[in-house]
Structure formats: structure tokens, C-alpha cells
């Protein structure tokens, strides 16, 4: 049961990071095509629409893997002076707090997405519906919340999680 949960969660975290990475490479391509085209009098129509909406996927796509790899920055001044018990309690608390924050983000952005649909909001040139990207942000936030809850659970049980596949930095 736990193994299956772990596997599902890992799959979602990897998928989310995969989408973000794909988005980043897509944005590089869009900018290059737009810059070259513009200097020949043929800019890519709606390039800015594509860039800003893909950015949502880039920024939130990485949240889950960042959470799983302990990538969120902390002020570690007193860590050596705290007892191991306290440090573990803090880890559990921070993980749960982060999960609550991401669930709250998902919930409020979901509400905003419904409002966007009602107001018919979309990007100015390509008419990409804002709500699509808000729903995507919600989904990616929920994966991040899941990753944080798993961190908290691991800390509570005293398990050091296996390093994620994409963790090593070049």
C-alpha cells in the first residue's frame, strides 16, 4: 500500500517536473523564433501570450520536485544548536505548513479560474483562456502539496527518502 502510494506520488512529481522542463525549452524556442522573425519584419504572432502562459507551467512544474528534494530555502543558523528531536519536529511542521499553503493556493486559484471563466478572460492576442493555466497551476500545486506531505511523513517516521532521479545538479 505504502509502496504503491510512494510510486504514484513519485510518478506525479516526475511528470510535473517534466512538463515544467518542456515548457522552459518551449519558451526558449518561442523567443528565438520571435526575435529572428521580428528582425525580418515577421514577428511570431502572440509570442508574449505563449511565453507568459507557459511560464506558469515552468514555475509551478518545478514546485513538487523542489519540495521533494528539500530545495526550499531555510535560515539554518540555529540548526546545529537544536536537539535532533526538535529538528525533526520542525521538519514535520514545515512540511505540513507547506502542504497547507499549496492546498490553499490551489483552492484560491481554482476559485479565480471559475471567475476567469465567468469574465471570459483570455490572453490578448491568441485568446488562450486564462482559466486553463489557472487550473494547471492548481493541479501542479496539489502535486507539490502531496510531495510536502510525504516529506513530513518521512521525517515523522525517521525515514531518509531515496534521492529523486532528477536531483543531481550539473
Amino acid at each position, binding site marked *: 500500500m505504502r509502496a504503491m502510494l510512494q510510486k504514484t506520488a513519485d510518478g506525479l512529481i516526475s511528470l510535473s*517536473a*517534466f512538463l*515544467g*522542463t518542456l*515548457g*522552459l*525549452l518551449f*519558451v*526558449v*524556442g*518561442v*523567443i*528565438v523564433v*520571435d*526575435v529572428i522573425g521580428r*528582425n525580418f519584419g515577421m514577428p511570431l504572432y502572440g509570442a*508574449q501570450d505563449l*511565453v*507568459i502562459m507557459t*511560464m*506558469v507551467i*515552468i*514555475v*509551478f*512544474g*518545478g*514546485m513538487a*520536485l*523542489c519540495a521533494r*528534494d528539500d*530545495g*526550499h*530555502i*531555510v*535560515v*539554518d*543558523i*540555529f*540548526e546545529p544548536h*537544536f536537539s535532533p528531536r526538535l*529538528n525533526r519536529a*520542525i521538519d514535520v*511542521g*514545515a512540511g505540513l*505548513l*507547506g502542504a497547507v*499553503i499549496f492546498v*490553499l*493556493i490551489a*483552492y*484560491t*486559484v481554482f*476559485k*479565480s479560474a471559475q471567475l476567469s471563466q465567468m469574465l471570459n478572460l483570455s490572453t490578448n492576442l491568441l485568446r488562450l483562456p486564462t482559466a486553463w*493555466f489557472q487550473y494547471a*497551476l492548481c493541479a501542479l500545486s496539489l502535486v507539490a502539496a502531496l510531495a510536502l506531505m510525504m516529506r513530513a511523513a518521512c521525517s515523522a517516521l525517521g525515514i531518509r527518502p531515496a534521492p529523486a532521479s*532528477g536531483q*543531481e*545538479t*550539473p
Partner: protein
Amino acid sequence: MSPVLVGSTGFVLLLVLLLLRIPVAFAMFTIGFAGIWLLNGLQAATGLLSSETFALASNSELIVVPLFILMGNVASVTGMSRRLYEAAYATIGQVRGGLAAATVIGCGGFAALSGSSVASALTMGRTALAEMDRFNYDPRLSTGVVAAGGTLGILIPPSTGFVIYAILTEQSIGRLFMAGILPGILLLTLFLLTVLLLCTLKPALGPKGPSTTLAEKRRAFLGAIPILVVILLTIGGIYTGIFSPTEAAGVGAALVIGIGALSGTLDLRSFWQAAQSSVVTTASVMLILIAAHLINPFIALSHLPAEVSRMLVSFDLGAYGTLVLILAIYLVLGCFLEGLAMLVLTLPIFMPVVLSLGIDPIWFGVLVVLTLEMGLISPPVGINVFIVKSVAKNVPLVEIFWGVIPFWLAMLVTLGLLVAIPQLSLWLPGMM
């Protein structure tokens, strides 16, 4: 509870959460959200949480964050940044702290390319830290140099800080850019002197390298040519209007990817890993920026800035006294707030005071932007320090804060010089 009391309590609680090792972004989210809830109701708090989150995650100017990280990561896996540092090492490696000095100059160059300090610290951090580590530089020195040097991005034009200041205070953007040049060079020089002084006092910080022959120097320099071409093309493209500073980040990334692929130094696997690790670093940086934008309305709603300024005016200290007091307030606020947010919150309040005392607004602009830079590296909320931390995972944050202290002091000296000698800021714009 009065709004001012809520605001002050919020600051204290933020500090407590940070010291308890709660991730910076989570602590800021919690305090910002709870503060807005208390001062303006739950509906306003949830509304701001969703609108600020989505607005920042789709902000057309912040796209430079993932793009510059990608450029730095790819330059790093392809060995381009290593060869750049080998060239620097062959040239000035035999001087104590030479690579740190080269990094300061690199930061100054990057500042001329980018208007944002975040982008400067990210790219320079990605490029420089591992290299200085390889040549046995102490992480305190290397991270301190990058965190502090990165702040030059908003003092040396182009600068987002000056643009926002100009629009908020109806000053000339062109004159402010001119005004930033000499102070930028002065600060850069003081950073260099700081590096030399530190390495003289404590040689282990930046050990001397072996001396090199002319042939070795030339070979090292030739190796660095690809990355130098990328840098020249990127800066050149901005100044000739081929692309905007924002697009430059994308073009620069594409160039290093292209060179890496063509030269065979970038295979698909390492490329994908570099890109994925860029996305993860982006997440940790952007979450802090989003959270900082929740603290901003919370402070506005607390009336704290307005109360502080009322107190300030009532002291009646004269022009110089008030100026020094205002700058001191900026230094304190800079410990907690994100730089540009601080401008928006405080300028409407301080500007009338400054103008009524006959203080030159261009001069004041330079002083304020310098205090913003100092805020970027002052604990507990020093955005640039967090950014360096996000690319230097193995260095404890407290080491980085220790590392920036000498540079913070150099900035304080610069601030003193700029206050004492207004001509340093006003001479160039006066020539226009």
C-alpha cells in the same frame, strides 16, 4: 489591536519563524496571509493569495529567472564557464583572491546586461561558485562575492530599480541611469579592494595560483572564446536593439545550447538534467518572490510606513539629519522587504519630505537604490543570499551571511561617500 501593532507583531513573528528554520517562502506566506486576513478580512487575503500567485507566475519580465538559470546551467555542464575561469585563473590567478576579483568584474559586466539583481546573482552564481570551489577558494568568500556582486545589477544601468523610482517620483529615467554609473564603478572598486584586503588578511580565503607562461595564458584564453562570444553577442544585441533585455536571457540560453550541441560537449541526457534542475531552482526562487508580494500589501494595510514617516517629520532634524534617518529606515526595512516592493511602499511617504527639505531627487534616488542593494543581502530576508543558496546547496546559509558582511560594510562606506559628496551622483547627469 491597532493596524500598526499588527504590522510590528508580524515582523517579529516572521523573524521567529525564519529562525525556527521554517522555509523562507512558507514563513512569508504565513505572515502575509494571516496579516491581511486580520487587517482586511479573509476574502481579501484569499483574493490576494490567488491574484499575486498567478500574476507573478505569469509575469513577462520574470521569465528571465528560469532563462538565465538555464543559460548558467548549460554553460556549466558544457564546460564553458570552467574554461572562462581557467582563462581568468591563468591571467590573474597568481594574485591572492584573483578569481574572486574577476567574479566581481564579471558581476559588473552582467549588471550592464541585466536590470535585475536576481538575474545577476543567479547566473553568476551558477557560473562562478563551482569554479572558485575547484580552485580551493573558501565558500565564504565566493558566495559573499556573488551575492554582493549580483546586487550591482540594479545600480549599474539598465536598472529596474531606477525605472520604478523614476515613475513613482516623476524623475527622468535617463538622468537616473547616468547618476548610477559613477556610484556603480565606485562600489565595484570598493568590492575589489574588499576582496584584496580580505585575502591579504587571511590568505586561505583565496589561495594564490601558480604563475603561468604566455603560451598557457594564450591557450586558456582561446578555450574561453565560445562563452566570451555568447556574452558579447548578448550584450551587443541589447544595445543595438535586436532584442530586449528580457529576450536576451532566452537568446543567451539558446546560444549556449547551440554551441554545446555543435561542439559535442552537450549530450541529450546532461542537457535535460540541466534544464530540469533550472526548473527546480526557478521554483524555489519564484516561491520566495511570490511570498514577498504578500508581505507588501500586509505592510501597506498596517499603516506602518505612514506612521513611521509622521514620526520622522515630527523630529525636525534638518535636511542632512532627516536624510540620514530616512536611509537608516531603509536599511532596517531592507532586512525584511523585497527591494522594489519597498520603493512602492515608502516613496509616496518620503518623497514629499525629501522635496520639501530641498534634497535633490536624483541624488536621493541613487542613495535609495544603494540601500535597496544592501537590503538584498541583509538578514533575515536577503533575497540575493537566498538565490546564492539555491545554487550553492552545500553551503550553510549562515556562512553566506557571514561572507557578505565585509561587502555590506563596503556598501555602507560607499553610501557614506555618496551622502558626503553629492557630486559623485550628480556630476554625470549634470553634463546631459
